[in-house]
């Protein structure tokens, strides 16, 4: 961000920090800068070692022909941008990029946002018991370990006695094999809607009731209230929500637990693609190049998000 934006954030925060006082105090705790830096250091060292170094390493690995085994494992050679050009030419990679886009659009931007908002909106008015039952279920789907929920869905969608087929009278349909992308999109909507629901509930709670009431007094129906009063208020939340869940969905590894990318790459989203190529297939250099592309996409989404946060403060 620009320096001016930075300064604006700081002065705003200081103005709020101590009403009446002119400037935020420099050292409220009486720690002294050296001691304060000493307290931050251990955390920073770990972050540096296990986040910054790996991120930087993708660049190095990405421009070599490093492999897990064989000659190149002992003596990797510099190959320049070969890995990147190879990736762009690789139909499997382009397929994976396309599937990832579908996955993010379908399960995050459409599925989780719509379901999350619908839940937040309807749960405001239902009896407390119904509300807490629904919320608990949606939240459990979110916080249960991924390998458990993955198996629950493997069982649920199984062609060999799965519950879904039993209910739909479609015995024998192997959903994960016949409709792998649709399956993981529905699965991820089920898994991740809780976040949008919580965020929209908080946002709707902050819409001033007086504005809704004056809209109702003016004769606005439910739809008009939504459009004219609610949406303008929660526009920022919608954007935050979209960015965050896109980021998480983009980086989600759980499709691997359901389909492992199969059948025949049909559900191989980018994280799964990297795993299969680099750690399963041993092409570390090539996998790193893809990782680097992924980091770049993350960076773009994160920059949008950070800008949004700063504007809001």
């Amino acid at each position, binding site marked *: 961000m620009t320096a001016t934006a930075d300064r604006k954030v700081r002065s705003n925060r200081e103005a709020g920090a101590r009403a*009446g006082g*002119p*400037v935020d*105090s420099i050292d*409220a705790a009486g720690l002294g800068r050296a001691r304060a830096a000493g307290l931050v250091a251990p955390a920073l060292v770990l972050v540096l070692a296990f986040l910054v170094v790996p991120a930087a390493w993708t660049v190095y690995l990405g421009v070599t022909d490093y492999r897990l085994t064989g000659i190149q494992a002992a003596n990797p050679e510099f190959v320049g941008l070969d890995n990147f050009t190879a990736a762009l030419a690789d139909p499997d990679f382009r397929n994976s990029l396309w599937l990832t886009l579908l996955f993010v659009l379908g399960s995050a931007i459409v599925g989780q946002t719509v379901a999350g908002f619908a839940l937040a909106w309807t749960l405001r008015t239902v009896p407390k018991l119904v509300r807490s039952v629904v919320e608990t279920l949606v939240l459990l789907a979110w916080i249960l370990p991924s390998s458990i929920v993955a198996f629950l869905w493997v069982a649920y969608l199984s062609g060999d006695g799965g519950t879904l087929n039993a209910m739909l009278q479609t015995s024998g349909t192997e959903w994960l094999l016949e409709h792998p992308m649709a399956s993981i999109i529905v699965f991820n909507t089920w898994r991740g809607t809780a976040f949008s629901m919580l965020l929209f509930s908080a946002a709707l709670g902050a819409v001033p009731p007086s504005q809704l009431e004056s809209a109702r007094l003016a004769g606005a129906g439910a739809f008009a209230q939504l459009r004219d009063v609610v949406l303008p208020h929660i526009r920022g939340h919608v954007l935050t929500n979209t960015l965050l869940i896109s980021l998480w969905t983009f980086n989600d590894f759980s499709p691997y637990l359901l389909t492992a990318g199969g059948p025949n790459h049909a559900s191989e989203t980018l994280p799964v693609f990297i795993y299969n190529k680099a750690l399963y297939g041993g092409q570390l250099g090539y996998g790193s190049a893809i990782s680097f592309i992924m980091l770049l996409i993350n960076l773009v989404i994160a920059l949008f998000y950070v800008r949004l946060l700063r504007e809001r403060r």
Partner: protein
Amino acid sequence: MASIRIDGLTKVYPGDVTAIDGLDVTVEDGSFFALLGPSGCGKTTLLRTIAGLEEASGGSISIGDRDVTRLAPGDRNVAMVFQDYALFPHMTVTDNIAYPLRIKKVGRSERAAKAAETGEGLGLSALMARRPGELSGGQQQRVALARAMACQPDVFLLDEPLSNLDARLRLEARTFLKRLQKDLGVTTVFVTHDQSEALAMADQIAVMEAGRIRQLGTPSEIFRRPANTFVANFIGSTPMNMLPGKLVGGVLQVGALEGVDAVAAGWAGREAPDGEVTVAFRPEYARVDGKGPLVFEGTVETTESLGASVLVTARTDDGQRVQVVVPEGEEPEVGAVVGVAPASGRVLVYDAEGELLSPSSSVP
């Protein structure tokens, strides 16, 4: 018990923001001293610098005979009551009051006894086992005071002591604080932006603006003879009447009263140069009966009840607004023509820089 001496104190924040600008002041031993001013004038910074929470950029602070300028807050033997009281929410009232003693490594039973004694003095005995969250604002304030008293400091520092109380409690707390300060006899400095609070409680008031003291004096000095237009505007619950005028050869000319000789009478003390001036008097120090050397004729626009008195606003023919406070029941009708006459000896004249010109009390 100790006096506080501040010499040439300067506080500059990073980014060249000067909060305190070469300030000198002495707070007498045992006095109740108010730092008064609008927000951002540096009064809170001054208090925090005395406490040691801010480091002075220049100058010195002495408490008693000790130069404390470079001492840590804990070594200055001062106690501070914060605006939000800063009672530790996880400790009971007893533990809160005893906290300074815990730092001084006083034994547990002695601490509890001392806390009970201090609490009793402030009427807190029934509340000693509660936590701050279960207390009213007034009770919290008394706990904060008890905690400050428990460490028997040389100096009390109070940051906006009444601002967290509701209006009714505030009046009670004023009386209570003033009596407590007199009983304890501890030198006390408090910060406030509310001039009525300062006038009511303090022995001495320092009115501050932009990191400097604009006037230092007793409440009555400051109320009767503000040293400059800033103080004149800031002090008083009804705004001071301020009218443009001119001095020509020692003769004061104000609006429609051009060339009235009588005004020149009683001009004593320092020589008054010719030029633009501001003529000021308090609405409380004027009448509507039109008697006196200086009379402003005007038409009554509004009357507002202040309870036992009424604020009358009149407008003179040349458009100046003049306000006067009259006893209830004696206010003129709206539309009536009245002669507003400041009481003799209550008219203040400020020069073009806004400094008080009339050092004698007999103008006109």
